[in-house]
């Protein structure tokens, strides 16, 4: 077999492998995609109407399981506990009403998928910038996720104290 054919064969094999991975993503890749979407949905710009705010809050709640448990414990702030998707939606709506804009990203994400492939834990750094504020918010967060009816949903979200 000549070299050009060998190279062509390697390229075709690599393309097929890439296509297979792209079409059949593993749980970790699915969760990463889901988290990217979550960061996008959690962000919002200024001058949103009430209906847009409501739709945004609803979209955010769609990432959560119905029995989600949220615990936000940040030094210097009052502890916040939310139980259930409705609570999350209300809190998201209240946030959108009180803040002009928010840009959220998850720059560092570590995912551990459990052996059953139906549950996973995602440790991530939340980077958030409130419109008009100089300092950005940085917080380590742990998300427990579960595959429910084919979708990876958050069942538990809690802040983590990096320095204890």
């Amino acid at each position, binding site marked *: 077999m000549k070299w050009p054919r060998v190279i062509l064969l390697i390229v075709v094999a690599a393309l097929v492998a890439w296509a297979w991975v792209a079409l059949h993503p593993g749980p970790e890749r699915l969760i990463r995609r889901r988290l990217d979407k979550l960061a996008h949905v959690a962000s919002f710009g200024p001058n949103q109407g009430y209906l847009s705010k409501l739709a945004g809050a609803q979209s955010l709640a769609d990432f959560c399981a119905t029995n989600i448990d949220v615990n936000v414990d940040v030094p210097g702030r009052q502890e916040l506990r939310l139980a259930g998707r409705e609570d999350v939606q209300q809190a998201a709506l209240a946030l959108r009403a009180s803040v002009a804009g928010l840009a959220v990203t998850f720059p560092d994400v570590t995912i551990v998928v459990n052996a059953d492939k139906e549950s996973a834990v995602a440790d991530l*750094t939340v980077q958030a910038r409130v419109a008009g504020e100089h300092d950005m918010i940085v917080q380590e967060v742990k998300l427990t996720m579960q595959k429910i009816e084919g979708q990876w949903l958050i069942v538990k979200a809690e802040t983590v104290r990096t320095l204890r």
Partner: protein
Amino acid sequence: MIETKSEPGQQRRSANWLQIVTIGRNPKTTLIRAAVLAVLCVVVFRWMLLPVRIQGISMTPTYADHSFHFVNRLAYLWSQPKRGDVVGIRLTPPQGLPAPHIMYFKRIIGLPGESISFANGRVLVNGQTLDEPYEKGSCDWNTDAVTLGADEYFVVGDNRSMAKEEHVFGRAERSRIVGKALL
């Protein structure tokens, strides 16, 4: 109207000069050099020297807000972090080699096994006052003594004139220390 005609040799010279400036005398060699340089940059700035931009005032006056620095990831390959070192601390648990995008930038004041506390703004290590020449502002912090575990370091920023509640400090596991501040 005055027309100027350039000589063919002159045109060739200017085209040659342009080629030398943009892609060099030998494009193939230039391409190889560029590829080597790109790989070198990725290796150095991803796995050896992490470029960081300071956000916040917790390390002032030593490190000013928005200033650029590097974190040396190789600093603790053959030695352990020492008291007084300024280190980068990752927020997410370490998994593999990838460099974190966001880190805390703090100074080590307590080593594994030691007891650390603040009394009227002074750091006490095992009950003894720690000399801190880098600490410039006035401080009135008071905390209970914390005994560090076998793989824990106590880190804090240099700007102690901040309110204690607004300052992130405390125990960091060794595995979260990414490297030592350079420059």
